[in-house]
């Protein structure tokens, strides 16, 4: 490629004429979050920590763009990513900036707890700021609940009886989807963590097998719900854009519950439903009524590149991002559950979830997408899709999942 430069004077001259970017850019792959990033950046500009969002339409090209440029001076100053194994890859390449000092400053001030940073910590160093910490809970249609004469369940038994009552009225209890591939893992992790969270943790690190009886039981429960008609067909869309599956059914009252990350509240609001009036939220109960409540969380990191040309500015922005001022704006714009202890959010559904979390103090469990190696879960969601579309493939799907796990873990020894 270097040879090309010599025969390439025209291109080089033209390229030089393109002015270097002035404002710091924050890369992300969420088009509908982008304007809000820029709004926070505009607020930061008042204190010399301005930035603007730059969004990529397609998550796969986004990852390629970031990965390829990380080791060069063209590396994005700041960018959003995925925690867990997806982040580990980048940390190991030595291209990420250690952000521990910034965390220490805010933790000392009591604005952040100590748990949160764990998701971004590798070998004792913290390599990211919280972009969003999402809790996975159930959104329910209040009118559908009222019509069926039910209330949000506190036990698994009540959940099952609610499902039956909804079904009797011709309303589907829960949505499930294989659209965009990844939503296939949602119910696998939900059933498993409500049944046996320890088994889930062991499975994630390769100390249990996808063919174990406990995992088989998960598939049996899942299949049971599908047979009883508690789930939408797996072909239902997950989002609100495009073909408009789940959120549309939810708005029409044909679907009573959607289990998703708390960011999904914006998607529901997009159909015209009012948070608090038309829909509410609850945490999926555990199967064993006496067990400690459990909730899946998803920590999405905001990373600073070590090689970025304007790293000094990026560190200033990073400091600003952690402040209560920035987080108040960000959490409210996005209706996110706040991560900074001094922040409150106006959205009634987000408030409801925040108070449910502080009341029940659930055990926090990392989402499967981040908690288990990419090499397993990427092809793994395809296997889970297979099961959802045709539950009779259960044995084969379990065997295939274990094959993927074996292939990965055997290489790690």
């Amino acid at each position: 490629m270097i040879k090309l430069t010599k025969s390439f004077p025209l291109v080089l001259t033209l390229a030089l004429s393109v002015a270097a970017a002035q404002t710091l850019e924050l890369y992300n792959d969420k088009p509908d979050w982008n304007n809000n990033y820029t709004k926070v950046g505009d607020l930061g500009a008042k204190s010399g920590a301005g930035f603007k969002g730059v969004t990529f339409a397609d998550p796969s090209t986004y990852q390629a763009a970031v990965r390829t440029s990380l080791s060069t001076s063209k590396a994005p100053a700041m960018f959003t990513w995925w925690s867990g194994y997806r982040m580990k890859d980048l940390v190991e390449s030595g291209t990420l900036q250690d952000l521990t000092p910034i965390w220490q400053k805010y933790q000392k001030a009591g604005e952040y707890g100590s748990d949160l940073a764990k998701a971004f910590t590798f070998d004792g160093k913290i390599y990211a700021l919280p972009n969003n910490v999402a809790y996975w809970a159930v959104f329910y249609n209040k009118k559908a609940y009222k019509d069926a004469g039910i209330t949000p369940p506190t036990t698994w038994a009540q959940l099952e009886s609610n499902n039956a009552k909804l079904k009797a009225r011709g309303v589907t209890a829960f949505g499930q989807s294989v659209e965009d591939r990844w939503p296939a893992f949602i119910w696998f992790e939900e059933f498993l963590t409500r049944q046996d969270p320890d088994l889930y943790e062991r499975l994630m690190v390769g100390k249990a097998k996808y063919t174990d009886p406990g995992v088989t039981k998960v598939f049996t429960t899942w299949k049971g719900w599908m047979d009883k008609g508690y789930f939408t067909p797996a072909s239902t869309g997950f989002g609100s854009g495009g073909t408009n599956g789940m959120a549309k059914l939810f708005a029409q009252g044909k679907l009573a519950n959607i289990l998703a990350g708390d960011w999904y509240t914006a998607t529901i609001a997009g159909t015209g439903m009012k948070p608090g009036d038309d829909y509410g939220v609850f945490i999926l109960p555990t199967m064993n009524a006496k067990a400690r409540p459990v909730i899946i969380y998803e920590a999405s990191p905001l990373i600073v590149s070590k090689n970025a040309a304007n790293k000094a500015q990026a560190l200033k922005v990073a400091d600003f991002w952690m402040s209560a001022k920035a987080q108040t704006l960000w959490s409210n714009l996005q209706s996110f559950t706040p991560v900074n202890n001094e922040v409150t959010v106006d959205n009634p559904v987000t408030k409801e979830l925040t108070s449910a979390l502080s009341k029940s103090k659930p055990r926090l469990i990392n989402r499967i997408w981040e908690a288990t190696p990419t090499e397993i879960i990427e092809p793994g969601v395809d296997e889970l899709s297979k099961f959802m579309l045709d539950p009779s493939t259960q044995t084969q799907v379990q065997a295939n999942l274990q094959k993927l796990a074996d292939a990965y873990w055997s290489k790690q020894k």
Partner: protein
Amino acid sequence: MTVTQQGRTPARRASARRSTAASLAPYLFVLPAVFFVAVFLLAPMLYTFWQSFTDADGLRTPNLVGLRNYAELLTSSNFTLSLRNTLIWVVASVVLPVGLAFALALALERVVGGNFFRTALYLPSTLAAAAAGVLFSFIFDPTSGVLNAALGALGFSSLSQTEWLFRSPLNTWSMIATYTWQSVGANLMIFLIGLQSLPREPLEAAKIDGASGLKFPRLITLPLMTPYVTIAALMAAVNGFKVFDLIWVMTQGGPARSSETLAVTMYREGFILFHQGVSAAIAVVISLIALAFSYFYLRNVMDKESHV
């Protein structure tokens, strides 16, 4: 490829008196185009070829691994499935759009409003494949789509729950239907040119002899149209190989990779799993197959030129 330009056209007497400067002139005309193609297309192609022998992952410095990526392809069930889907695409995109277009071309030749109809049928061809994919995602939607609603209304209630894009191999066929809808127009135009340039005499003779109705096109037109059918078919085959946008927008190759074609598999390996070496190896395989088709296509076109 057996034909060259030299010797076909009248020789230019003046060429003997050319100076060195003049003999350099043709190169000056060709060089800019060659430069662009070499830098932006051929160099990346060569780089991909090299990468197919490495373990590149987009993050670390790649190492040479010999033929390992190719060996991996041979043993991968995903690759085999993808190859099968690609073959379905190639065969179907030759048979359906070309066949349908041929039938329509004959049916719409010299009828009232023929021009208007041809324009209407061509309209979908001006759409982007991505846009057509979005449109038909709405139509194929199992719960709120028009297709299932129509099937239900017509009394086919057992079919009205069909998950068009979620069952294999139905999803591939649904996408081929979309593709056919989009590409019939262009093929129709090719056949129209063919029909217009047919020599009149044998047609008139046949009419006088009493050939009519369905027999007429079959007996007379078909043999005369063979070259056009061949070229349309070869072009359709090359394009069928390259289909990507439509699949990416409609199913992303899913569910469970069941509707992937080689182009999609390659994109997935390179841009989602970051197996860039494997991705490059698939690219080389597709290129070789496409090269073979292109060879036959070019030879056909150039053979025709030599008869002008």
